[in-house]
Every structure is written in structure tokens, then in C-alpha cells.
């Protein structure tokens, strides 16, 4: 698949990385040569220093034979212009990033009249993701698969009693659950029966949702199950705006602390409720006077990753139940779990996964990236011509990095072992290391040439979004 990405910022980089790791030809256009140099030195893509809105630039890249154009420059208007030009020149699919809240209610209009196939809004997506987490009553963040029947959740081992130091086979799980991966010091480990679990690890469990809840009951230190009623949000940016709207809509009380007076005014004017406070969110006195320990949740959405992380730690210490930090750079992902913050949301990865999910269309039902893109979980409907159908799993010879986490067979959740057989039409939840994504195709799809192969090629090779 030929893809042009206009704009080489954080999102552009992430998309280029995901797409180029598989069989896609990726071209990145940017006007800044330093940005391009970084991409060029780290990724196997072609970089071009030019203005993406120029017809000439796009035509030189044979835009008419392109499969996808993603416009993710810093300006909404530029993105729209690039998308329109690309579409009119015969590019098959165009995606634009539009983040201005003032355009938010006309996105559908823009999309349909300007023939843009998909519009992403990172702040909105982030807000949605955070709201989903806050509004759910369970203490663990769970990722849903197979229409909500199967879940995947991360547990920090130090919060669980009686697991650290045990080997996987000694866990003696009563429920059908599978430990699909262990993250240790920012690395992903595929566990075997003999793998010992350390107290600093995070384990990733997959199985029926009820079973995961049971598990957390049995093992977890007591979980507070009260609903989130009061939320403190730090920073008054675009995602705060979206999140506040969502929470207010659900009857949650919110407080927003923002440094900029004008921005405070804007928020106070435009939000239908909630309390906007003008002040410095890192000021502990302000936080205490605003009753931080009384809050059910704190969401830190300032523009600085470091500030967000530190305030979250502080809030955790003050006894806030749920703490969410926004972290835009993936560099920090390996250390976040060691810090003890419940949830770190990464707008870049969320948006990237949104885009990838769109590109893949119906082929992969659901996709989710873990650990900053080191691994991904895909939900795939088994095709009757694919290699995995009709054989015992132990005979498939799957690579180490690919784990079949669960199978949904005729509405029954099966946690597979070596003797399980996948039937055509089953929903298969696959845990896969990024390095093995390329070989997924070999096992899960028909290996034929021509048009069909092209389609598969256009499917495979995306990946990355971690939400939490």
C-alpha cells in the first residue's frame, strides 16, 4: 500500500513507524528538515521536504495511484486543504486531523461535503478514553473484545496478594484466564509455565470479563467500588473541554484548574456547569484548599508530560482514588508503570490506533496497542481458508511472539490450550509482539497472489494505539 503522510510531528512519526514496519511504502512530507532527518534516520520511509498543500508536490508523488493520504500537520485548515486536493487528484482514501473544538460540531459536514474519508480529533478521542475509564465502576482498566464478552486487563503485581514470586503454572487459577504477557521494566515478556512473576511486574490477563472481575476480587487488595462523583481536572486545553462536557453530561461534578486567565474565561463561558479556577495546578496549597483528598479522581491534562506525571503521583499520595495523567511522548512509557500511576493516556497512540482501525476497515474487528506499541492485540474473524482453521493449536507452529488469547466460538468463550481447534467464523483474540506482526498474515489470511493478496497487504501492517 502506498501512503503519504503530510506532517512529521509526533502523530505523523508514530503512523509512519507503524505503517512502515510492514509491507507499506510510506512517504512523509514536512517543511522542516530537522523533523525529516529524525524520521529518515530511524524509519525505512522516504522523506520529502516540501509543502504538502502544493499540487506540484503531490503530483510528483503520483498522488493518483496512492492508497492513502493522512494529513496531520499542526493546522486544521492545512489538513483539510491537503485532504481535498489529494481526494480530487484520485487518492483512494484521505484522513485529516481536525482538533479545533469550534469545528467539532461541523465535523460531519466537513467530512461529507469535502469527501474526507475519516477525521480524527486526538483531544476528543483522549477525552472519550478518559471518560470511559472514569465512568466505569471497576477499579481495573479493561479493554473489551468480542462485543464485550472478552476482556483484557493489566494488574500490577504489587497490588495483588500472593502472586509475586510464583511461577505461572503455580498460580492455580480457578477461572479460565490466560496470562498473555508480562511487562517487566518496560519490556514485554511472553510467559511460559516456568516464568516466575516478580513483584515489580505488570501482568496482562485475558479471558471472560466476569472471570477477570472474579480474579480481581480474589487477589486484589480491597477495591473501592464507589462511583466517580467528583473530578478535578488540571489544565484547560482542548481535551479538558471535551472531557468536561462528557463528564457534565453524565452528572459528574468537575473542577478545572487552569493557569491562563483568558482560557479560564473561555471555559467558564462555554461549559454548561462545573467550576473553573484560575491558578497554578502544581501549587500544593491551592490543591489542598480545593480539597484534593476529597476527590474521586484527578485528571492531569496540562501541556507538560512531566508536570502531569508528578501531579498524579502527588494526588495518589493525597489519597485520590483514580488518577489519570496525559503523556504525549512515548519515551516515558517504560517508566510509567514503575511510577505507580493508575492510568496514563497517550493522545498520540490513541489517535494512531483510531486511524489504523479505520484503515483496516472490517478486516480486523478491533485493535489495541500495548506498551507504546511493543505489542498489539487484534480481534480477527477466522476465515475458512486461513492456515489456523481446523488444526490443533500445538500443530500450527506459531512463533513465540504470537499468542492466541481467547476464542469466541458460537458465543462461548474458550481459553485455548494446545488441543484447541479454531473453526471458521470464530472470533480470535490474538496477542502479538510488534516484531511478529508481519508473520500474522501468514497464519491468519489466505496466502494468494493477485488482488486478494493486495487487499491483505493493505490490511496488514498497521498497528499501534495504546490506550492505557
Amino acid at each position, binding site marked *: 500500500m502506498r501512503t503519504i503522510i503530510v506532517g512529521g510531528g509526533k502523530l505523523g512519526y508514530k503512523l509512519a513507524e507503524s505503517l512502515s514496519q510492514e509491507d507499506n*511504502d*510510506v512517504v512523509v512530507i514536512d517543511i522542516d528538515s530537522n523533523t525529516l532527518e529524525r524520521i*529518515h*534516520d530511524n524509519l525505512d520511509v522516504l522523506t520529502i521536504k516540501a509543502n504538502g498543500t502544493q499540487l506540484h508536490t503531490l503530483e510528483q508523488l503520483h498522488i493518483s495511484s496512492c492508497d492513502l493520504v493522512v494529513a496531520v500537520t499542526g493546522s486544521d485548515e492545512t489538513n483539510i486543504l491537503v485532504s481535498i486536493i489529494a481526494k480530487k487528484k484520485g487518492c483512494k482514501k484521505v484522513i485529516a486531523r481536525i482538533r479545533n473544538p469550534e469545528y467539532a460540531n461541523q465535523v460531519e459536514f466537513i467530512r461529507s461535503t469535502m469527501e474526507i474519508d475519516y477525521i480524527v480529533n486526538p483531544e476528543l478521542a483522549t477525552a472519550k478514553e478518559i471518560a470511559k475509564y472514569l465512568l466505569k465502576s471497576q477499579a481495573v482498566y479493561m479493554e473489551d473484545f468480542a462485543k464485550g464478552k472478552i476482556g483484557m486487563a493489566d494488574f500490577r503485581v504489587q497490588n495483588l496478594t500472593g502472586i509475586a514470586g510464583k511461577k505461572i503454572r503455580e498460580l492455580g487459577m480457578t477461572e479460565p484466564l490466560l496470562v498473555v504477557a508480562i511487562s517487566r521494566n518496560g519490556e514485554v515478556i511472553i510467559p511460559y509455565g516456568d516464568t516466575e512473576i516478580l513483584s515489580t511486574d505488570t501482568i496482562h490477563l485475558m479471558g471472560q470479563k466476569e472471570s477477570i472481575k472474579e480474579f480481581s476480587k480474589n487477589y486484589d487488595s480491597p477495591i473501592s467500588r464507589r462511583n466517580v462523583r467528583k473530578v478535578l481536572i488540571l489544565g484547560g486545553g482542548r481535551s479538558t473541554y471535551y472531557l468536561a462536557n462528557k463528564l457534565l453530561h453524565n452528572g459528574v461534578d468537575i473542577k478545572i484548574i487552569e493557569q491562563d486567565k483568558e482560557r479560564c474565561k473561555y471555559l467558564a463561558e462555554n461549559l454548561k456547569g462545573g467550576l473553573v479556577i484560575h491558578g497554578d495546578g502544581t501549587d500544593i496549597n491551592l490543591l489542598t484548599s480545593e480539597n484534593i483528598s476529597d476527590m474521586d479522581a484527578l485528571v492531569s491534562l496540562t501541556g507538560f508530560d512531566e508536570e502531569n506525571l508528578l501531579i498524579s503521583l502527588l494526588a495518589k499520595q493525597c489519597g485520590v482514588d483514580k488518577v489519570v495523567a496525559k503523556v504525549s511522548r512515548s519515551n516515558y512509557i517504560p517508566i510509567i508503570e514503575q511510577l505507580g500511576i493508575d492510568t496514563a493516556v497517550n493522545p498520540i497512540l490513541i489517535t494512531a490506533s483510531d486511524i489504523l482501525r479505520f484503515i483496516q476497515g472490517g478486516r480486523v474487528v478491533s485493535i489495541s496497542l500495548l506498551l507504546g506499541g511493543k505489542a498489539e492485540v487484534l480481534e480477527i474473524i477466522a476465515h475458512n481458508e486461513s492456515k489456523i482453521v481446523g488444526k490443533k493449536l500445538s500443530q500450527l507452529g506459531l512463533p513465540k511472539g504470537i499468542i492466541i488469547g481467547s476464542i469466541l466460538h458460537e458465543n462461548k468463550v474458550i481459553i485455548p490450550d494446545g488441543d484447541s481447534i479454531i473453526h471458521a467464523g470464530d472470533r480470535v483474540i490474538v496477542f502479538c509482539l510488534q516484531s511478529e506482526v508481519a508473520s500474522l498474515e501468514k497464519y491468519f489470511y489466505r496466502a494468494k497472489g493477485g488482488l486478494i493478496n493486495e487487499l491483505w497487504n493493505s490490511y496488514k501492517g498497521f498497528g499501534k494505539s495504546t490506550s492505557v
Partner: protein
Amino acid sequence: MNYGIVIKVLGNLLLFEAAALLLPLGVAFYYRENSALAFIYTILLLIILGGMMAKIPHVSKKIRSKEGLVIVASGWVFVSFFGALPFVLDGSIPSIIDAFFETVSGLTTTGATIIDNIEVLPRSILFWRSFTHWLGGMGILVLTLAVLPAIGVGGFQIFKAESPGPVSDKLVPRMRKTATILYTAYVGITLLQIIMLLFGRLSLYEAAIHTFGTVGTGGFSIYNNSIGAYRSSYVVIVISIFMIASGVNFSLYYELYKRNWKEIFKNSELRLYLSIIALSVLLITFNLYGKVYVTFFETFKQALFQTASIITTTGYATTNYEEWTHFSQGVLFFLMFVGGCAGSTGGSIKVIRLLILLKLVIREISKILHPRAVVPVRINGKMISPDVIAGVSSFFFLYLLLLVMGSLLISLEGIGLVSSISSVAATLGNIGPGFDFVGPTQTYSAFSVPSKLLLSLMMLFGRLELYTIFILLMPDFWNERI
């Protein structure tokens, strides 16, 4: 430094060399020569060693520019060393130093030889000697990239360190595809020339050998008189044309394939390259007509061939240009510092660098006239970044520095100044023959061992564009503490 991946790539490279040696082995079998044994031993050694190295576990697959440089620089030394073994084992070149010199000369497409009488050597040995030109011409690691499973991102670092020119760019997003495209053009030109030479009634063996020497811009022949052994004007003209074609940036052949005529005609490097050739041929023709050669056609033919041979840094000869007038010799000497285009198989300074330097001088002059003028340096209508300009200027200085220092050391041999300078210029520029003591009818056999090693180093310097080798000699590079 990620030593694991460095060793692994080098292991693959050695395995690849083993595969390349199968070709001369085939020639040895075909002509029933005893040298087959020498090839078999070398191949076995390479398979064992390369196989072991390729199995080395590596922590990460990441190849940064540092690893890329080490892979390319040490890769070339390794390949040269093992490539020299058949010569020694067979006894064609008994001294390992001489054999190393000969292989480096082959791989770097220099064409300087230490063999005084090549016509007595076995055919398979001569075939391998010329085949090294072909392997080294486009870059043996780039070839490995095209053939082996993608090394991925790191591939670009290797490509950057090995391919000639101030800026290396990919043609298509995928590194591996880029390498494949370049090699397709290379193989295409090779096949075309072999066919053209077959029409000139050369045997397949001779056509292949001289094609390797031409498209790799190397210059090894199987005759002591080089191309001068052929009386046919057709052969001379064909080889001239292909030498010129091999000095062109190979990415332009991709544009040719895509019918991007504008890109080709507007390419200022190509235009300057062809202009220099045309002007030199004209000057030499009028200078020599009636003095050295009788007919105009003969003069033109000799002028064209020698010009093409020197500017593309091939180093084939049809005549002893030592007998030419001083002016014509001067033109050839100047051409030794021009070289082919960036991204070609030619060596030396490269036309693009001279073009940038020329424009830099023009800019300086206009800045003296208009001190406040903002004048960008443009090539092909695109501005050249200050980083690249600085790189080109320092390259030029370093080139001259190496030339002067090298000549100084070589002059310890007690040969004349012209011989000393031209021997270093001819090896540093990957040309082969120089003037006087190392003229087209002479060889490098009389040099002492240290000088041969120095000249081998010069050839590697020239082929890998100075910095790649230079950086390895810097203590800071190896100092992991910083």
C-alpha cells in the same frame, strides 16, 4: 555500539562473498584449471566463518549510523582480505600483501595492479580479479542489502556510508527496493555491454571481463596492453560509451525508466559531467591531431577513450599517454580530480562536489560585490543546505590533505615527484594508472610493502569517501564513555 548486529551483518557479508566466489569456481571447472582448489578452500573457510558470525545472538536489530560506519568500513577490509586468499592459495600472487593490494584495488574499482605479466595467470583467477570490480562498483554491502532479507531501517545507514556522493537519497520508500532498483540498472547495463562486446567478436569470457572492468569503472584487463590489445575501433568506442554511462548517477536510469525526461535533462551534475568530457575530448583531439596521430578519427578515438577512462576513474588504456604532449597529459591529470557523478560507480571527488564548490566560489564573489546579498547555493533548482556545503568543503580539503601527506610518504620510495603525486592521486581517486613510474604501461609491483599498504588504505579512503574510514581511526569514536 551494538556489536551483535555488526558481527551478524558481517557474517552475512562473508557468506555472500562465498556465493560470489562460486562464479570464478565455475570458470575454473569450465577451463579445467587447478586454481579451482584455491576457490574451494576459500569458499569453505568463508562459509564456516560467516556461518558462525551470522549465528551470533544480537540484543537489538537497531543499526545506528555508528554501526553502519563500522559495518561498511570493516566489511570492506574483511571482504578484501578473504578475496585475496584465492590469489595466494593458487600461487598466482604468492605474497599476501600483494594479493591484498590487488583485491582492494579490484573491489574499490581502482584497477592498479602489482602483476607485471598478467597474461600467464589462470583464467579463473583473472575472472575473479575482474569480478571484484563488479562487486565493489555499486557497493558490495548494498548488494547484500538487495539480496538478503531486509535489515530494515539500519539498511539506510549502511547505504549512506557506502554509496558515493555528498547526499544519498532513497529512490523509493523502501531501502531494500532502492537497492534492488539500483542493482537492476547495474545488471542491465552489464548485460547490454556484454552483448555489445559479443558483437565485436569477443569471446564471452573476454566480453565479461572487460564489462566488469567498465561498468564497475575498475580497469583490470587480461592483457598487459589493456584495451590496446584490441585493434577494433568498435570495441574501443563501445567501451568508451559504457565507461561514460557508468559514471552517471544510477538513479537517473530509474528516472529514465520512469520516463522523467525533465529530471534527466535538467540535472546540472549530468550536464557538467558531459560538458567536461566533451571539452576535454575536443582539447586533446586538437592538441594531438597531426602531432601524435595521423588521422583525425584515430586522434578522436584515443582522446575519447582516455578522457572517459580517466574521468570515470576506470583506468583502461588503449595507448601509452606518456607519449602525448604535456598539455594533453595536463588535461588528463586534471580529470583525475573530477571523477564520476554522485551515485555512480566512479571514484574521485565527484562532479557534484566540484559543482557545489564552484557555486560557492561564485557566491563568495558576489558577496564581495554585494556584502548584504543573500545568495542560496542551488543545485537542480533546490537549495543546498549549509550542512552539505560544509561537508563538501571539508571533504575537498581532506582529499587534498590526504593527497599531500600520501605523496610525501610515497616520495620516500625515491621516485620522482610526478610519480609520487600521481600514484597517490590514482589510488585515492580509484583510477589505477598515473604518470611516469606508475604510467599506463607500468605496474605498482616495485613499491615497498609499507607503500603498498599505504596505497591500499588510500584506495579504501577514496572508495568509501574518506570519512567512513577516517572515523574508525578516531579514538573518540571507540570511546563509549562519552
